[in-house]
């Protein structure tokens, strides 16, 4: 056995060209496999993390019976190791709130009992004015604005019948309620999404609440209510007691399905000590459920982006095996002549495969790791990521062994069986029309791709339909379209190429003669009469290029679209939202403009509760001149195809209004129509009528994360309504991070500003799929493409030299000089390269267009076409060209080392 192994090892090292060619293919396949899997895992973890990041309150434990003591609940929950923080929350409804000494009062609202630590722990309730005082109350900023409340004022709360005496308390602070939704999570046991946000809110210290209000409120009757998307009935206690939890997420599994199970188990363990008394609402799990679907789609996307590359690299290995088939047959015969039995030959072949697999897998793993370090930096191998690398390496090892089994061992075994049965004495292939061609599989696959696209389109699959926070459903069969297109186009390419090389032989000869002179004709003959070999080389090179081009175009479009989406959500590079109570005027715009690195700034007025007909709509007031300079605008956002023309139409019509397409449809408004609306003045708490004229329609308008239904001229809006016109500010800059910091440093001490920029904004309106960072994968796959192109061309040329070395030796003996031989080689290489380049770019563009079309749903602003990043494509094609040149140089080197006297003796 040992001697058989030694023989197998020697056999491998005796054929360095074949061995290295095979290992090159296997190394690239395994390397790309390792890197892709690593990226999938990395992205999975990032997506899980990103999906959970916006959650402010991870879990809410609600008491379902009035007899439960909140303190006991909090203490018990705090005792759980995975619970990072637990804060008791009690709340009750009030029916009216008024400023002492004023006749104006608010509608019904809620009073919350929160400890001072709650504000610090959860951070979504900033105290914008004043401070927490154990003897005073705080009010929401909207309530403060509406009732004109300030720190030091007294308020009076009225409760439901049964509590006759109003409760009076002094105001110690004002709380920003901009992102206060987590306080109002819907208590829907079926887990539906949604908040029961209440506009008027008062915050009391728990001590005061328990002392002054709870005893009386607890005596009020228990009611039930239908809530949530499912309309489930829940018990509503007069004093609702909750514990808000923050969970230690570091222990959560990267796989959202597993994390979901972990959290569900945690939820049950939290409920267990309080049977029938507590229901824990798992806000993380809801998000994970959505992320799970997104991650599945992301995995499919990654795999579909990388599979062609892996297959191509694997095919390179198989190609190398095919090239050495004749030599292997000779060795086999020799072994059998020397008396080796079937078993020995089989064992030697198995050892050969094993050694190749081990070498290929090891080199692939090392190469894959190096490529990761090269493209992502060595920092990527931190402790957290290393645990992701291990399974990737494991799977890639398995893949490498399977590949070697399929590409090397099985053909060799089949060959051996053929030799034994005497059925085949030669591996020379009989040229028959392949099955796929007889079945017209190329056309069939292209038709299937077309049908999938048509059906998807007919079902509205390309239209953005996602609602906030939900996953985008990308059905698996959608990816069939690009996959079928890729295979169909490839087979069609082979068919067309064969047609060109056989029927179009005179044309090929004419073209090559024109380029390379008389030797071009010889090259043309060689190519047309070896259409199979040429077909393999062109197909391999063209597909590698198409893979790279598709990837480059897709990633370019994806990145542009992603940036556009973020800029659209933010409005510009930075958005500044002051608290409603800040009453900033336009002077603040100038202050922002004067900050370093700021290109421009624009103030926007906003009325989120304007009345159009009987419905509340969001109306913005913009200053066209500064808005045009500052906001993220593209002409594709406007129906007439020009952002400038539309905005100028608004500027030139003082009472003009731009409206969103859906509003135009809903109210049947056309450009030129009169639009009547009523805008709300929070100071006077009155609606003011306004008449505007429709001057343009937009599909998207960058203002804020809230959709803008209508946009007026800011001056017209503020003068008519009587407000300051500065509800939020957009800032354009080339350095969003620095400007955000600068705004915080300059104004943060006196104002609680909500600052968002394109670097930190997380897209809230669509799928977490768009949070995927494909840039790293793109860089990696660009390099792999270049390597596969170089390898396929180099392998083809060198194997061609190997296969035709006797032919080249004869040519030398007949007076062909080295330059002429090189010309022949160059003619073939150039032909392959140019055909591959043209078809590769064509097929690649098609695949990219299909991918972009399929992924339209995940973007807020659907892409209208492909983004051609000339630099990226140029780099890819340049690298591929370098690869080709390297392949030709390698072949030339082999040519100059050809020993004519030796090759002429070969049988």
């Amino acid at each position, binding site marked *: 056995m040992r001697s058989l192994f030694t023989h197998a090892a020697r056999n491998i090292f005796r054929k360095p060209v074949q061995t290295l060619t095979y290992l090159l293919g296997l190394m690239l396949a395994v390397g790309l496999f390792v890197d892709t899997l690593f990226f999938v895992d990395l992205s999975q973890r990032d997506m899980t993390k990103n999906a959970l990041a916006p959650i402010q309150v991870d879990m809410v434990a609600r008491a379902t019976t009035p007899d439960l003591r909140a303190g006991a609940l909090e203490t018990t929950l705090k005792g759980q190791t995975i619970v990072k923080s637990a804060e008791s929350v009690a709340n009750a409804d009030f029916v009216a709130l008024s400023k002492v000494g004023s006749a104006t009062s608010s509608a019904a609202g809620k009073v919350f009992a929160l400890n001072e630590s709650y504000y610090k722990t959860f951070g979504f309730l900033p105290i914008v004015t004043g401070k927490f005082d154990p003897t005073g109350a705080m009010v929401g900023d909207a309530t403060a604005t509406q009732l004109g409340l300030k720190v030091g004022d007294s308020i009076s709360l009225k409760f439901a019948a049964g509590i006759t005496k109003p409760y009076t308390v002094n105001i110690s602070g004002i709380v920003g309620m901009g992102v206060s939704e987590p306080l109002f999570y819907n208590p829907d046991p079926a887990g539906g999404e949604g908040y029961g946000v209440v506009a008027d809110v008062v915050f009391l210290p728990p001590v005061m609440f328990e002392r002054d209000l709870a005893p009386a409120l607890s005596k009020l009757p228990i009611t039930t209510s239908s809530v949530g998307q499912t309309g489930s009935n829940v018990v509503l206690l007069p004093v609702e007691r909750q514990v808000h939890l923050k969970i230690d997420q570091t222990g959560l599994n990267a796989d959202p399905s597993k994390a979901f199970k972990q959290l569900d188990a945690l939820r049950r363990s939290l409920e267990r000590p309080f049977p029938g008394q507590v229901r824990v609402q798992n806000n993380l799990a809801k998000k994970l459920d959505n992320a799970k679907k997104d991650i599945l789609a992301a995995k499919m996307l990654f795999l579909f982006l990388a599979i062609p590359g892996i297959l191509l690299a694997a095919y390179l290995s198989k190609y190398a095996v095919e090239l050495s088939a004749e030599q292997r047959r000779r060795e086999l015969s020799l072994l059998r002549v020397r008396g080796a039995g079937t078993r020995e030959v089989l064992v030697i072949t198995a050892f050969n495969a094993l050694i190749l697999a081990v070498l290929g897998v090891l080199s692939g793993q090392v190469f894959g790791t190096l490529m990761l370090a090269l493209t992502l930096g060595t920092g990527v191998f931190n402790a957290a990521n290393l645990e992701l690398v291990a399974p990737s390496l494991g799977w890639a090892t398995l893949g490498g062994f399977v590949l070697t089994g399929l590409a090397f061992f099985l053909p060799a075994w089949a060959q051996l069986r053929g030799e034994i049965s005497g059925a085949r004495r030669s591996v020379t292939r009989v040229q028959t029309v392949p099955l796929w061609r007889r079945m017209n599989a190329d056309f069939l696959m292209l038709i299937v791709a077309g049908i999938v696209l048509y059906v998807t389109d007919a079902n509205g699959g390309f239209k953005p339909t996602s609602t906030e926070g939900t996953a985008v459903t990308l059905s698996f069969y959608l990816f069939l379209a690009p996959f079928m297109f890729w295979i169909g186009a490839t087979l069609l390419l082979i068919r067309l190429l064969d047609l060109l090389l056989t029927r179009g032989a005179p044309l090929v000869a004419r073209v090559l003669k024109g380029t390379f002179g008389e030797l071009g004709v*010889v090259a043309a003959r060689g190519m047309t009469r070896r259409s199979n070999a040429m077909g393999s080389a062109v197909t391999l090179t063209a597909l590698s290029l198409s893979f790279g081009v598709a990837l480059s175009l897709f990633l370019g479009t994806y990145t542009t679209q992603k940036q556009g989406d973020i800029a659209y959500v933010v409005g510009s590079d930075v958005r500044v939202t002051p608290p409603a109570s800040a009453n900033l005027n336009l002077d603040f715009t100038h202050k922002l403009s004067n900050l370093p690195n700021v290109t421009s700034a624009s103030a926007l007025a906003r009325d989120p509760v304007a009345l159009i007909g009987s419905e509340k709509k969001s109306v913005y007031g913009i200053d066209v001149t500064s808005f045009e300079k500052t906001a993220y605008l593209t002409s594709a956002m406007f129906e007439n195809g020009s952002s400038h023309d539309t905005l100028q139409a608004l500027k030139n019509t003082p009472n003009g209004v731009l409206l969103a397409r859906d509003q135009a449809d809903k109210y049947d408004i056309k450009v030129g129509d009169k639009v009547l609306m009523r805008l709300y003045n929070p100071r006077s708490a009155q609606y003011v009528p306004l008449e505007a004229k429709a001057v343009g329609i937009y599909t998207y308008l960058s203002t804020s994360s809230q959709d803008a239904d209508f946009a007026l001229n800011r001056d017209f809006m503020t003068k008519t309504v009587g407000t300051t016109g500065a509800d939020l500010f957009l800032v354009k800059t080339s350095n969003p991070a620095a400007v955000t910091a600068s705004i915080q440093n300059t104004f943060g001490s006196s104002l609680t500003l909500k600052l968002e920029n394109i670097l930190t904004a997380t897209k809230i309106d669509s799928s977490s799929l768009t949070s995927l960072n494909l840039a790293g994968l793109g860089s990696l796959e660009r390099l792999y493409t270049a390597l596969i192109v170089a390898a396929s061309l180099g392998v083809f040329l060198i194997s061609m030299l190997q296969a035709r070395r006797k*032919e080249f030796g*004869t*040519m*030398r003996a*007949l007076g062909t*000089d080295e330059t002429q031989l090189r010309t022949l080689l160059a003619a073939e290489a150039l032909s392959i390269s140019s055909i591959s380049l043209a078809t590769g770019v064509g097929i690649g563009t098609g695949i990219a267009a299909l991918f972009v079309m399929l992924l339209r749903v995940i973007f807020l602003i659907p892409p209208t076409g492909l983004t051609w990043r000339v630099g990226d494509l140029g780099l890819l094609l340049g690298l591929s060209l370098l690869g080709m040149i390297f392949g030709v140089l390698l072949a030339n080197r082999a040519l100059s080392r050809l020993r*004519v*006297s030796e090759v*002429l003796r070969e049988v």
Partner: protein
Amino acid sequence: MNPILSSFSSSSTPPMSDTLYDLETRKLSRVFDLGERQVQALQNVNFRVQPGESVAIVGPSGGGKSTLLALLGGLDTPTSGQVMLAGKDLYAMTEPERVQLRRGYLGYIFQGYDLLPALSVLENVAYPLLVAGLGSKERTDRARAMLVEVGLEGKEDFLPDELSGGQQQRVGIARCLVAEPHVVLADEPTGNLDTTTTDSILELLRVATLEHKMTLVMVTHDPEVAKSADRTVRIRDGMLEVNP
């Protein structure tokens, strides 16, 4: 049998004379370095061929026949010694000069025919003229004429693998002769052929070299084939044996 045969020996100094030989080797040696060991393929071989003469080199396998032929054709590099072609040292020439020699002065016929598989019969025959830079019409005319001479008229558009072994070798001979070389080097030209075909090929070679006044050096292991030459030299263990 040519009397000059007697002047060959593997160790003696070649006789100096005023005769300009078509081919002459002087103390020609070739050692192959196989890593662990060295193989002396040729050892001080002195060998002369006069213009128009046909010489058969015979000997056992591995004796150095083909190595000698390769060195005579400038396809290998001697370890020491010289190959003189019409009085010029072949291995003192530059590679382009040797290429020129292969295009006009030397012609090759191979045992396995070694036709270019992608080219038609006509294109194969015309190939040496193509690389020599002749125009298309002249190439085609001369190739057609040569095909008539070797009896392959009408097979111009056939591909090599559509022909029999004998026909392929005729194409090989036509390809060699079309460039009108002074010296034809043939390596086992009938090695792959049956007896009848061998006779016809040898006849063809004999007539063609006579008509075109060419010198023929032929390697063979077949004594019958060797008899067709003016003289025979035997090579064994890298050394020439005189007049076997």
